[in-house]
């Protein structure tokens, strides 16, 4: 590119701003066709190992009462679409909770058991299982009412430069979509595939684990799993991805 071309491109980037909602595509669109097929195939997508473990935990008795299934009978029906409505504001506490947070809340308040802990295999399994029950359903998370301040905070996070490399999420995930960052093709940076099995992790991980990887990538503070900062960001990403199909458990490089 010539210098004039670059100046023009930079000006266009500045003007372009955020991607329009109807342009945003699911993360799997940016995978190779072979990986796309593998994600779709339950027998070849390793994420389903966690889904199966979660399904078993969901109805296991081993002294814990009530079990998940005693409150959520026929989960394939009763919980279909549930994951597509998270994160949401918990009416009782006024706090923003994501799917992991809601599962932990059931575990602690209703089952009177110690929390599993973020990123534990049990919580990942249950989250992957419940998320898989919404597979293909359109994401429908609200940015209105009580959710509004969280949405605004998440949006501000997404748009501000951070870290030693001084980059904002939007610069990569709106401005550079489709470009190669080393071996990766940059996607719109949405969370509809999470929890996802990443080859790099050799395991299943939550959206917050992926966010921590992007934070580290720009040499910025990694916020805690389940922190207010990442919860607000998760809400913003979900609203940004409104109406896109849920695809957890995703398969990623």
């Amino acid at each position, binding site marked *: *590119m010539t210098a004039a071309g*670059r*100046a023009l491109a*930079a*000006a266009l*980037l*500045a003007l372009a701003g955020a991607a329009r909602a109807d342009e945003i595509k699911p993360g799997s669109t940016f995978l190779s066709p072979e990986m796309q097929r593998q994600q779709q195939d339950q027998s070849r997508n390793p994420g389903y190992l966690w889904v199966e473990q979660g399904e078993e935990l969901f109805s296991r008795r081993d002294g814990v009462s009530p079990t998940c299934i005693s409150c959520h009978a026929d989960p394939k029906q009763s919980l279909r679409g549930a994951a597509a409505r998270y994160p949401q504001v918990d009416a009782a506490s006024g706090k923003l909770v994501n799917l992991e947070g809601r599962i932990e809340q059931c575990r602690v308040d209703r089952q009177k058991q110690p929390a599993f802990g973020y990123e534990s295999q049990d919580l990942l399994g249950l989250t992957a299982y419940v998320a898989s029950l919404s597979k293909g359903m359109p994401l429908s998370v609200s940015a209105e009412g009580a959710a509004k301040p969280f949405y605004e905070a998440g949006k501000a996070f997404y748009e*501000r*430069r*951070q*870290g*030693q*490399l*001084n*980059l904002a999420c939007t*610069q990569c995930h709106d*401005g*550079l979509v489709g*470009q*190669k*960052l*080393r*071996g990766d093709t940059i996607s719109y940076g949405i969370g509809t595939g999470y929890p996802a099995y990443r080859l790099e992790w050799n395991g299943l991980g939550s959206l917050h684990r992926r966010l921590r990887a992007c*934070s*580290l990538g720009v*040499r*910025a*503070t*990694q916020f805690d799993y389940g922190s207010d900062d990442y919860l607000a960001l998760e809400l913003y990403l979900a609203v940004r991805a409104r109406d896109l199909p849920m695809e957890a458990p995703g398969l990623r490089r």
Partner: protein
Amino acid sequence: MRLAAIRSALIMLALASAPASALEAYKVVGDAIPAPLGGKIGDLKRGRALVLDRTQGNCLICHQVPEPNEPFQGTIGPGLAGVGARLDTGQLRLRLIDAGLLNPQTVMPPYFRIEGLRDVAPAFRDRPALTAQEIEDVVAYLASLRTP
């Protein structure tokens, strides 16, 4: 537009009279920083290693260089083959030190700046991404890339 950006950058630089940091001072002339940082002399070999290295410079996440044995080079920034013929050392130095001086919207990270950054991870806080010596090393390597 570009000139205006340079002018406002110069004004900002002038206003920030006493840099709070201990970073080596430099002077912007036009779109270049002609004098080597801290008077250091760059080493081409070390510069090449820094550019290819995945933890420090990590330039190849974004750029392509004429290094056939390096797989998976990025496509985010301009290719660097021939950059030494397009830009002189002063121009290269400015773009590495702080490309934001030319283009406030730039994606190119500032490799020699510690002010105005936010939420920097503790391991990288209060030090520039590259030291003055390392900037000079990388400039020496880039200047050697003369074939488009």
